[in-house]
């Protein structure tokens, strides 16, 4: 376990480590839907320029937390700070990638990708150029004028990703972006995400329920408990990602970390 730097929430008193330069700070977030308590007193710091994952069983409030950070949902209590300032709704420094893609079926790929820029009043020529660039970035060059129904699930999610990249937000919020695509596409997509993370100086906050995916991609993993979701612990898998994807997946640290998370989750379920 030497490779895994971990902070046990139970021992730290108030969970959530103080990260040197957090771009997003979640402070005491509680969310109730009527009588169901989805989140309870959650604190998370999202470090700038890193990929942080929210990991937890289905229904533990991952989507809820991500939507609160996005400003799409109001919390019952607590606040979210972005760059030190409390948010009161969606903002230009955050962009969302939706689990169900949320593409406009009546619009072409390029119109969908340029949507955020259009809403911001960017002139047409300029936004189409940016959109074209982002479409190339996610590997969809040549599909600019297709409609979403002509694309596979994986390609649709790439459109969703390109749309989020196009608005050049600092923080990308991704809600289980690969849950609706097949395994090969998923792996390819994960590699692309790692590459993008190195190219672009962006912060990723990523939701998944896959332990392997979380360990493979993340700089930090925030583990949420079952409903009501609370921060159970934070793990920073120090995986060496210089090798090929297959080498990483055979890496000792990688396998150990997956195993360790699996054990702690199992303790938790029982």
């Amino acid at each position: 376990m030497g490779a895994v730097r971990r902070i046990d929430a139970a021992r730290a008193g108030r969970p959530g480590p103080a990260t040197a330069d957090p771009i997003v700070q979640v402070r005491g977030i509680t969310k109730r839907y009527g009588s169901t308590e989805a989140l309870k007193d959650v604190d998370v710091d999202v470090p700038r320029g890193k990929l942080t994952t929210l990991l937890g069983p289905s229904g533990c409030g991952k989507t809820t937390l991500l939507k609160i950070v996005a400003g799409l949902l109001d919390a019952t209590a607590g606040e979210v700070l972005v760059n030190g300032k409390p948010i009161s709704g969606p903002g230009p420094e955050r962009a969302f990638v939706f689990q169900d893609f949320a593409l406009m079926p009546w619009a072409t790929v390029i119109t969908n990708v340029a949507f955020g820029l259009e809403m911001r009043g960017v002139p047409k020529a300029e936004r189409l150029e940016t959109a074209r660039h982002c479409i190339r970035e996610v590997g969809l060059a040549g599909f600019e004028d297709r409609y979403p129904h002509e694309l596979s699930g994986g390609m649709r999610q790439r459109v969703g990703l390109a749309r989020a990249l196009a608005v050049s937000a600092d923080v990308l919020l991704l809600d289980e972006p690969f849950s609706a695509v097949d395994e090969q596409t998923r792996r390819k997509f994960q590699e692309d995400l790692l590459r993008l993370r190195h190219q672009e100086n962006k912060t990723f906050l990523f939701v998944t329920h896959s332990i392997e995916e979380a360990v493979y991609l993340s700089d930090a993993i925030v583990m949420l408990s079952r409903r009501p979701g609370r921060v159970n612990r934070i793990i920073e898998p120090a995986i060496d990602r210089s090798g090929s994807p297959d080498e990483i997946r055979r890496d000792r640290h990688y396998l150990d970390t997956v195993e360790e998370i699996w054990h702690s989750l199992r303790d938790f379920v029982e």
Partner: protein
Amino acid sequence: MSSNVHSPGAAAAAVSGRPGRALARAAGALVGGPMLWRLASVALFCLTWEVAGRIPVSYAFPTFGATAAAFAAMVADGSLPAAFAVTLLPLVIGVTLSAVLGVGIGVLMGLRRGAEWIAAPVFIVLQAAPMAALIPLVTFVYGIGLTSKVLAVCLLALPVIALNGYKAVRNVNPSLLAMARSFLASPWQRVVRIILPDASPVIFAGLRLGVSAGFIGVILAELLITPTGIGDLITYHRSIANYAEMYASIASIIVFSAVTLAVLQTVEVALFRPEKKGT
């Protein structure tokens, strides 16, 4: 309503602003398979009619040939075009009014609780009411002129258009709305760029139902209130036992109504749902 009704409508082409493409599509549809089957279906119908007329089913039932001849004669002597002009004026006014008001009120009801509470019950009651029974009442209020015919059209067309608009807006994909909000769309941009396009299939379904209700309204008004236009033509030819002419009048208004609805569908696809083109 089936989504694959095509019409070689020039009107649609003019509205879409891409007359070349629309015409090419219409031409393609004419030679293409589906259009061939549709023509075959029409031909079969006419043949059945002809045979039934020759048996004859009833002495008041003319053959297809006799009806077509009567149609040609009525077009030639100008009585049919004149009747159409008379019928279409209140229909066009009434349907246009209903479309503008109905879509406007319907969308507003979908967007605002206040509008929903005030307007929805009225339309629900109106839609449930047996309108044919109400139409004679319109005469007492507005006499037998154009106004009462327009009112008859609106009474039938407005509720279905408004209620469809309302349902359409209520059922807009919430995920798309969240997407628009997260990409900082203003409330107005959300209405124009997300709600209206996403709601347009149901809004247009309402418009098509509204237009066919409008046809019912205007013909009912002509049969029950003001003996003019196509309604009068039907009544007149029946009274002097000109059955071929009577059938020609009825068939022509049916065909006209069907073509109008098909054109409406083409306009919808051209304007709002480009992804459904050519499917």
